[in-house]
């Protein structure tokens, strides 16, 4: 059971307006301790603005938020939060290690914390090189290293796999899961559905500045369905309707589609065989997060992969 005490990021009606443009519109969400929460939405949906408000970089026009029980952007909250928002930002003339040393100086962290963060993102070998010589992926990894300085309780990461090659993306996802296993809470935004599906315990879908839905991936998917390839199809339809009701039965691509739990497959197959209807194939079908996303957001497919 989740208690209020477990919710370490809470927003209520969080709103940001730039002139006449409503960037974030009344977002209310809760992130629980120890989970990986995915903030999913297309480019321009309001993900980054919401994260900026949680870090105190941008002041909300309306609504409230608390981070680890503190006001967003307060030193008490920020000291327990690591973040990477809208790409890494470092001094180009300093090395990766020296950049981290500068940041560590702000909070009184020592050399060990810097070395540990570099080790965690596997950047130790190139840590002495100037930041301006880094590839996009290395810059992103240094950004994550900066977020990890001092082992924060909460990580707020905006598109953490941006710029990484496939192997780097896999490593990053593994790292995020490992951090969650160690008890760190991760709030990440992404427009990559597969990424969110792979690593997040719960998901919030944002589009047009509004939070459309939130819950576990399974909750968002709802129930699965069964698809049967049968012949003759007209003979199978009344049998299925008698078993599950007309609302649960439809035909898709000359197949019988049943909105029932896959565990009921044996029941329907037995009924079909008894009625001398040939059953060629039975398969369970889960709604993909992609389908759910487009259904919730009403967005086109551009901007979301």
């Amino acid at each position: 059971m989740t208690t209020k005490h477990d919710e370490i990021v809470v927003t209520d009606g969080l709103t940001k307006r730039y002139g006449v443009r409503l960037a974030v519109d009344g977002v209310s969400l809760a992130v629980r301790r120890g989970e990986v929460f995915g903030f999913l939405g297309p480019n321009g949906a309001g993900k980054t603005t919401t994260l900026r408000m949680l870090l105190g970089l941008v002041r909300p026009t309306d609504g409230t938020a608390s981070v680890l029980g503190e006001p967003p952007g307060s030193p008490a909250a920020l000291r327990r939060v690591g973040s990477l928002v809208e790409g890494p930002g470092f001094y180009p003339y300093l090395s990766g290690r020296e950049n981290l040393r500068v940041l560590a100086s702000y909070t009184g962290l020592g050399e060990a914390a810097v070395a540990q963060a570099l080790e965690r993102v596997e950047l130790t070998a190139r840590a002495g090189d100037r930041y301006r010589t880094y590839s996009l992926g290395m810059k992103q990894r240094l950004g994550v290293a900066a977020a990890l300085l001092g082992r924060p309780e909460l990580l707020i990461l905006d598109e953490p796999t941006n710029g990484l090659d496939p192997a780097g993306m896999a490593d990053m996802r593994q790292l995020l899961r490992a951090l969650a296993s160690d008890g760190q809470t991760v709030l990440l935004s992404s427009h990559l559905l597969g990424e969110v599906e792979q690593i997040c315990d719960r998901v919030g879908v944002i589009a047009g500045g509004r939070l459309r839905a939130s819950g576990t991936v399974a909750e968002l998917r709802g129930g699965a369905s069964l698809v049967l390839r049968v012949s003759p199809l007209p003979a199978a339809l009344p049998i299925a309707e008698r078993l599950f009701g007309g609302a649960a039965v439809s035909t898709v691509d000359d197949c019988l589609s049943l909105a029932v739990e896959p565990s009921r497959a044996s029941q329907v197959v037995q009924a079909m065989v008894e009625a001398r209807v040939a059953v060629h194939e039975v398969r369970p079908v889960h709604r993909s997060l992609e389908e759910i996303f487009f259904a919730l957001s009403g967005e086109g497919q551009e901007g979301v992969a």
Partner: protein
Amino acid sequence: MNAVGDLGRATRAELRRLVRWPAMWVLCGVWLLLNLTFAYVFPYLTYRDGTTVGPRAGTGTLESMLPDHAPVAVVQGMPMFGGALVLILGALAIGGPYGWGTWKTVFTTGPRRGVALTGTLLALGAVLVGLTIATLALDLTAASVVAGVENQAIVLPGAGDVLRGTGAALLIAAMWTVGGALLGALARGPALAVGLGLVWTLVVENLLRGVANLLTALATITDCLPGTVAGSLAAAAGALPPSDPNGSPGVNTIHDGATALLGVIVFLVAFGAATVGLVSRRDLAA
């Protein structure tokens, strides 16, 4: 963690990135080179070239190049050229991180924005202290060489003169640096801030002063400009206005020393407060 501790850590962190910043060393190097060139090299060549004829001839020029005059050499170029250079330093130090995205990183690290910004200004102050000391050391060295070559006695300046000259130079430099920092914060980037700052220090103030000679109402305003009070403070520390053969651009005698000192301090504090207030209150949306 208390505010003083946070400020100490922020100052150390900012000093750490400033001392490794090539642009800072370039600007300081250019100032030292200009100071040496205009306070010693050109005057000495002029002195050697025309000791008997010309308006810049005579022992006055040589006296201005001897060691006891070194504190004046430190401050004489600061109201205009030195000021322009340190203004660039301030504009780049505050405006640059907007372009690099490092303010976002710093402001999400822990300290309050006001503390982080004040740390930056204090770190810049430390750089200016170093620069002022380096300028004095360079000027004393150059003056000693001139004295040696010209068979003059090496008489070191008194402590009071050193304090007056370097103190005035430091205050003027700090005022222009923080003015540049304010421009960097206003422009949220280095390029526009540097451009506007240079136009102001090198062109606008001089044009206004020229027009003020014709419009007396404008004179009241120009008398209160940062360049005017900086020039008067330099004059109070011994620098001569351009009307004198040994004078320097930007130096003036419009205000007495106390008024000029107060004016420079007022601008310094106002620029600093405006910078910290502006960055603290404004959204960091990019």
